[in-house]
């Protein structure tokens, strides 16, 4: 065991290296690229006994990852954002092959507008793909959970690919001290890859991923995959217990931060939960009864754990770093579904959307959220979902628009007061006004 200063990307690369994976199909995309650069360099300098191949797209990359896993080697790959979506057809396809491998996704907002910084719309688009999902909030967790992910994917009760998710920039490029396990210990923990009966050999020909005709055969295989995915909670718990015994770091399916004795609970995914933790600390110091639940596993969804942890809570605020257009926060609706039939579930389940495209969520905003959940209990009313945005941000955008208009008017010889297409009509409602 040695201590190193690693970025989230570096930690992910170390995870792949320590898991002794054989094959890395790759394709560069910001903010993930450092992962494949690290691995490529280790392979070039004989520090890692693996083969890396740069494909011509993420679609091809996931195809190659799937077929290599289906041939019988241990596979690791990484992507982000648009890349994950470009590969989306193959995510759904290869999970059905039941050939396990690990994919790291470095979360980044999706176009449009095209951007580089983090939110969770990319990873949530893969929600129903059949990949299991582990969401990380620290660099240490990224390394450790990459090792755990190989065990989870390859477990005979699961046999599904696993995505390890970390937030772009906030985690991918942030250096933290990370305990890097000894290579022999890590190798022993992960074990050798066992392809079981999913493999290509000349002496034992098989057909994989064949077509089916009709809904019966189709449903059979889809149900099998779903039931295997559901095993993920139990299996993750088992592996994490073993990991803790060996390396001394505990990973629960849901990270429970002072939620046991709290009346109010924040629920959120990923690295921004570390900001929520700070807010919880400060609020508790000020006398609030508040805690945080952060699901590490999103697929399978830890329904029973949520039901247990949220039993008899007064109110919950789900902070979604994603937005399902025309619906709202994805985690909010998932949690609402999990709690629906629970008689002692919290009556107030508030939805907040924030942190899109890397936008910060300040401690003050967490305080605002805390006040909103307390007020909901006080007034007996759940407020409508809130799109977090400040007056200052809106003013900044309006300023940019004004500058752009002036520039355009100068080019087209218009008077500054002339009406522009897209100018707001009086009485028209836009961002910022509903929350005033």
């Amino acid at each position: 065991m040695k201590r190193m200063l690693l970025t989230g990307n570096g930690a992910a690369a170390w995870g792949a290296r320590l898991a002794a994976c054989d094959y890395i199909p790759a394709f560069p995309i910001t903010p993930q690229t450092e992962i494949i650069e690290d691995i490529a360099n280790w392979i070039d300098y004989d520090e890692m006994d693996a083969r890396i191949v740069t494909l011509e797209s993420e679609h091809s990359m996931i195809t190659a990852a799937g077929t290599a896993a289906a041939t019988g080697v241990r596979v690791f790959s990484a992507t982000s954002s648009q890349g994950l979506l470009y590969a989306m057809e193959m995510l759904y396809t290869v999970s059905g092959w039941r050939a396990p491998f690990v994919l790291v996704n470095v979360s980044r907002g999706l176009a449009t507008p095209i951007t580089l910084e983090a939110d969770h719309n990319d990873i949530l688009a893969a929600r129903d793909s059949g990949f299991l999902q582990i969401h990380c909030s620290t660099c240490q967790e990224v390394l450790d959970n990459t090792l755990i992910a190989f065990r989870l994917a390859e477990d005979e009760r699961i046999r599904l690919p696993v995505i390890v998710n970390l937030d772009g920039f906030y985690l991918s490029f942030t250096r933290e001290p990370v305990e890097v396990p000894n290579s022999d210990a890590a190798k022993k923990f992960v074990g050798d890859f066992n392809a079981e009966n999913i493999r290509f050999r000349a002496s034992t020909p098989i057909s994989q991923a064949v077509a089916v005709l009709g809904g019966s055969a189709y449903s059979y295989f889809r149900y099998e995959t779903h039931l295997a995915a559901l095993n993920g909670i139990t299996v993750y718990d088992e592996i994490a217990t073993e990991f803790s015994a060996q390396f001394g770091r505990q990973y629960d399916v849901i990270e429970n931060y002072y939620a046991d004795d709290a009346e109010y609970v924040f629920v959120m995914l990923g690295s921004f939960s570390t900001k929520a933790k700070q807010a919880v600390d400060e609020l508790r110091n000020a006398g609030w009864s508040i805690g945080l639940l952060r699901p590490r596993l999103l697929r399978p969804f830890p329904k029973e754990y949520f039901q247990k942890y949220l039993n008899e809570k007064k109110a919950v605020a789900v902070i979604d770093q994603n937005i399902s257009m025309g619906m709202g926060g994805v985690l909010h609706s998932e949690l609402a579904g999990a709690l629906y039939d629970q008689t002692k579930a919290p009556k107030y389940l508030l939805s907040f959307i924030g942190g899109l495209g890397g936008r910060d969520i300040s401690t003050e905003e967490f305080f605002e959220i805390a006040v909103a959940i307390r007020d909901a209990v006080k007034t007996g009313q759940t407020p409508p979902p809130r799109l977090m945005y400040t007056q200052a941000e809106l003013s900044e955008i309006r300023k940019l628009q004004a500058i752009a208009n002036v520039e355009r008017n100068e080019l087209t010889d218009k008077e500054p007061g002339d009406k522009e297409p897209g100018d707001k009509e009086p009485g028209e409602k836009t961002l910022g006004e509903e929350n005033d």
Partner: protein
Amino acid sequence: MTEQNVTIYRNMKNLPSTHLLGTGTPMCAGCGGLEALNQVYDIVGDKSVFVNAAGCMTLLSVYPFTPFRGSWIYTAMGSAPAGAQGVRDALDILIEKKRIDKHEDMQVVVLTGDGSAYGMGMSATSGSLERNLDYLYLCYDNEGYGNTGQQFSAATPHAAKTSTSKGARGFPGFKKDLFAIWVSHKPTYVATVIGAEPVDLARKIEKMTKLQGPRMIIALSPCPTGWDFDPQETVNIGKLAVKTGVWPLKEYIDGKVIHTKVPKQRKPVEDYLKLQGRFKHLFEPVRNEQLINEIQNRVDTYWSEVQLL
């Protein structure tokens, strides 16, 4: 003469009399693609993994049956060559790391239709060629999206009627020169074949199985349902495609293109066209002399340039 040039397939008598590929597949009667695949599979053999892209032949392996004695994996329409990359790399790794014996190795064969090969799969194919992937690629080219009812594809010939080009002049575009596109990557081997010329086909497959690197093959595949002709005419139409010069049989190897079967006296293209319902509008109700000449001229120009080489 190198060993590569020695062929055991000198004439029809040397060809296998029984086929390796199982019978009872759901392909259409008279399928020119299956005709070619049967012959290819006899020579490639069952020590192979067929990596398939979406197309008619995806239906060869329907759970729980397959006509293949070797292995198979279906991928997607756009990325079968990337699938081949993963299988090839994994087999290499397993052999290098001594986890499997060398006799467990296999030929990796991509099997796609023209819809994938000429279009959606082009980027993945080009990538595999630049990476010099060691594999075989068989494109069965029936000149349209056959599995969905013969809409025109980038492989459809000029003037052909398809379900998305039903007008008086048929398909306004021109068949893409996939052979030239592949050759421009300078792969190990590229060839055109047709099931109706089995000796030419067998020699080429025999040659390519002994080589390393990307080995690419386009099989023109007369399609009774898509081209609208009686299934018993498949072989006849295939032979006419060669005799009229519409489908030049050729190969690219060691930096040179060689025509392997040059028709001495080319038959007029209309001999080939008039047997197919997709070209019926060139002859009925009135003969479209201009369009027939246009097609003939294009074929003549091709061959006049070949003679110059």
